């Protein structure tokens, strides 16, 4: 039972939200096709702090950004 705090609506269970990823592409990938491919399919899949977007589906219907530790689900 993970909880998130919507800056507009307050603390809610995760069931109220939708997850949104912030893609991170290594700067070393400079070729436009390779960047595009990486953005479309490859994932950093962070083990630890992860900056991500959440949409408050059941509330204000706005996005917000949180940092969450993916090993504990704790919001940092």
């Amino acid at each position, binding site marked *: *039972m*993970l909880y998130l705090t919507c800056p507009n609506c307050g603390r809610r*269970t*995760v*069931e109220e*939200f*939708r*997850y949104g*990823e912030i893609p991170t592409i*290594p700067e070393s990938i400079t070729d436009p096709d390779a960047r595009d*491919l*990486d953005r*479309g*399919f*490859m*994932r*950093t*899949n962070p*083990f630890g702090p*992860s900056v*991500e977007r959440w949409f408050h589906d059941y509330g204000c219907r706005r996005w917000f950004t949180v940092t*969450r530790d*993916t*090993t*504990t*689900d704790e919001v940092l």
Partner: protein
Amino acid sequence: MNEFVESRVRLTWPDRLRSEYDVVILGGGGHGLATAYYLATRHGIRDVAVIERGYIGSGNSGRNTTVIRANYGVPEAIRFYQRSLELFQGLEEETGRWIMHKEKGLLWIAHTEMGLRAERARAALNHAYGAETVFIGPDEINEICPQIDLAGGGRYPVMGASYHPRGATARHDRVVWALAEGAMQNGVEVHQNTTVTGLKVSGDRVTGVKTERGDISAGVVMMALGGQVTMVASMAGLRLPIRSHPLQAFVTNHYQPGLDAIVASTELLFYASQTARGEILIGAEIDRQPSYSYRSSYGFLSSCAGRALALLPFLADLRVLRQWAGICDMTPDYSPVMGPTGREGLLVTTGWGTWGFKAIPAGGEAMAQLIATGEMPELIAPFGLDRFARDLPLSDRGSAGTQ
């Protein structure tokens, strides 16, 4: 003694970790051990070490809901899982071990016209590609599984189903042990409690692995890691199309056999079956957020129970014994990734999402063939990592069982 005590498998552990093997397999779960098993038994490649961080089968191999089926949504997957289903059918005879394999038939229930359309299409496609599946109506559903409430609690009327008679279950741990034993008997070394700390890289080539117990050189390194594959791959500068999500499940106390079929609903997003021991095992969709946390949630338990009851109300009085979570590596197209990585000497089998257990024998067989021959087997050629660059994804979300 209960009849389920493992009384035949014998595991033989090596004394020491050597500094060189022909093949090093990272991950002592079903896929890693199956690859080792087939390398040793089919190809005579025995100088193999399987490196496991915990105990064998401690990852998803010991946390899944044990369904075996081949009714997938793209031809390439149907062929692959059909091969796996057939290997499972022969695994007890081949290994001489009781893996509690039992064919019980699998029902995917539809509750709307759109659901009917999807299940009819699934049946047609699977039939065409050799995985027996038929579309059936409520009367036949009732015959196969009389416990299903055809009214669906008033909200989810049972309008039809695709029925996959060869759908089966087996005991996950016993599959792992049978393969481990078979590999060990043929010379494979399985090293438990050994954590990989890095990959040995020389230019574009991976030449071995670093572990807490010392470095190992290897002709081929194969990653068969559930949950940790992104991190290990990054040690070779490799990026993967993987996001790791928890998948939760729960189980009841044990009861006499009575739920004969595996029951699933893609709309209600749950599936239920009865284990050989008599427990009712219920699983659902993955958690939406990527996470490596094994912590269970009450929200999952409550909603999964509620959805299961809509179709199987007789479950209401069964006692919940425990709930748990596994970590599923999900690809963007909901199909696994098998084969070369673009780094010489490094292979991967990953993206096993919610469908890894059923693929254990075929995945292991194909990866062993790849290692032994250097050629990508035809059966898994479409599952290569290069499919994304070639824009040939194998979109199979509808077959995840939980989507």
